[in-house]
């Protein structure tokens, strides 16, 4: 009998009085709340997992009078749609979470950078923003929030590329340091957090760090929204505690014939059936921004890998050579092996190229192409060759 997955109902809870929560935090004090946030163990929900409390603390302590709060709603990782669900169903919480960040850090201005594909949400968001702005003013906090639309570029989900795009430039990532917390939008200290992270900050403001820590595991606290799709018994967005094994996940969501699960989108890892039992979903195992794609045994892993590489080749911003050329060569390479124009040991050369990309690429895009590439080649080599 499969063990029941632990479900939580926090993100979409509706019975929250946001302005009462902000008043509670105002009484509690900025520093106490930052301590609370750090103790909660909350890590950024975009996938990179930087401790949120620490990020807010750095920006708060910066003496610069102008600071910005940015919500990264440029959700583009293949198989990820939980931010859209949040913006559709719980946009208030995101907006108030940003207001909370503004109060804590002393920022007066914020922006939601939302991908062009989600532009249809803008009317609803604008209404929610207006409501928040007028409420927060009555609490004596001045915070102006604007919407900025992306224009169809996956790379702009990378925070430095996002800032470049907001500044009216090509969305090309910049070197870190400087980090956005020190030198972000218009060179000012900037908090950039994922949609889900702001919601989690509000949840922590509500239930406190102690309650929050009871969810999940030691390395992966709290609950997480998962975007589940593919060959599933049920698809959609589900809020689950982190720290489950892939086997537990598959027992609940698979169609009974699951061959592999792609955890963390195209830039994540492909977990084959034999590893289901000993792979934990969370920062201690396979980290994830929430995307879970399920493949059954009727699927060709070659087609899946080729589809990923087409995606990366198109979305690579092109400024650094390892990523620009690497993504092209990986794609050409597996096609050549498939067509028997190259021997199968050529795959080992491609693995070395993926390894080089991991260390030589400028940003997370090029660095993570090798994740899916390696895990698919190593576990399904025969499907790539024959």
């Amino acid at each position, binding site marked *: 009998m499969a063990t029941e997955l632990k479900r939580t109902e926090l993100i979409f809870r509706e019975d929250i009085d946001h302005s009462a929560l902000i008043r509670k935090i105002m009484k509690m004090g900025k520093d106490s709340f930052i301590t609370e946030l750090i103790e909660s163990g909350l890590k950024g929900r975009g996938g990179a997992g930087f401790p949120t409390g620490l990020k807010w603390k750095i920006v708060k302590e910066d003496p610069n009078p102008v600071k910005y709060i940015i919500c990264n709603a440029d959700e583009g990782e293949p*198989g990820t749609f939980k931010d859209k669900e949040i913006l559709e169903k719980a946009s208030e919480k995101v907006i108030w979470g940003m207001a909370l960040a503004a109060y804590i850090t002393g920022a007066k201005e914020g922006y939601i950078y939302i991908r062009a594909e989600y532009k249809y949400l803008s009317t609803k968001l604008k209404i929610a923003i207006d409501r928040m702005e007028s409420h927060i003013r009555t609490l004596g906090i001045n915070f102006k929030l604007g919407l900025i639309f992306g224009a169809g570029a996956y790379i702009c989900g990378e925070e430095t590329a996002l800032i470049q795009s907001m500044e009216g430039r090509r969305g090309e990532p910049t070197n870190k340091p400087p980090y956005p917390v020190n030198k972000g939008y218009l060179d000012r200290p900037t908090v950039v957090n994922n949609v889900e992270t702001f919601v989690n900050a509000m949840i922590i403001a509500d239930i406190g760090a102690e309650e929050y820590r009871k969810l999940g595991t030691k390395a992966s606290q709290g609950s997480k929204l998962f975007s589940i799709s593919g060959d599933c018994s049920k698809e959609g967005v589900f809020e689950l505690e982190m720290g489950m094994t892939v086997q537990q996940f598959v027992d609940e969501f698979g169609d009974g014939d699951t061959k592999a699960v792609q955890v963390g989108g195209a830039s994540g890892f492909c977990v084959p059936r034999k590893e289901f039992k000993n792979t934990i979903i969370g920062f201690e195992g396979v980290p994830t921004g929430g995307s879970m*794609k399920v493949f059954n045994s009727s699927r060709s892993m070659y*087609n899946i890998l080729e589809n990923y590489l087409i995606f990366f080749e198109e979305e690579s911003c092109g400024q650094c050579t390892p990523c620009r050329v690497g993504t092209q060569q990986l794609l050409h390479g597996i096609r050549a092996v498939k067509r028997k124009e190259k021997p199968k040991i050529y795959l080992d050369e491609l693995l070395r190229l993926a390894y080089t990309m991991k260390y030589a690429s400028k940003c997370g895009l090029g660095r993570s192409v090798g994740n899916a590439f390696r895990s698919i080649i190593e576990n399904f080599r025969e499907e790539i060759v024959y």
Partner: protein
Amino acid sequence: MISNNEEFISQLADKYGRNRESLLPMLQEVMDQFYYLNEDCMITIAKELDISTADVYGTASFYSFLDTNEQGKHVIRVCQTIICDMKRKEDIIDAITELIGIKPGETTHDGKFSLHYTNCLGACHKGPAMLINDEPYTELTPEKVKDILVSYMKK
């Protein structure tokens, strides 16, 4: 026409401010107005923002939703990423091609529709999915696509 463009761009610059951060929102408004970024508008924007025209073009050409060649009034973008691919996005493309006679990358002669592949639309659980202008359509079938396109033909 030229003076019209100049007036339009100048109004946009008034609205967003004459600084570099205004470039993307201005280009996006030109897209809404003309369905693509014509050279004339890009040159005028460069003048208004006091940056080089190459910089404007260089920025515009980076983004897949900013087109520098002529597009139809209604731009159809069909998701090509893995889950929509598994859910037979090719049937959707075929249905569109059959109905309006264009393949991905093409525009109809009457300038009404353009068809493109696009990357993950964030609707994997409801695939196959497509976007027409800003409007998403999910759980598509060839029949459903035909009904949707017919409704746009009347617009």
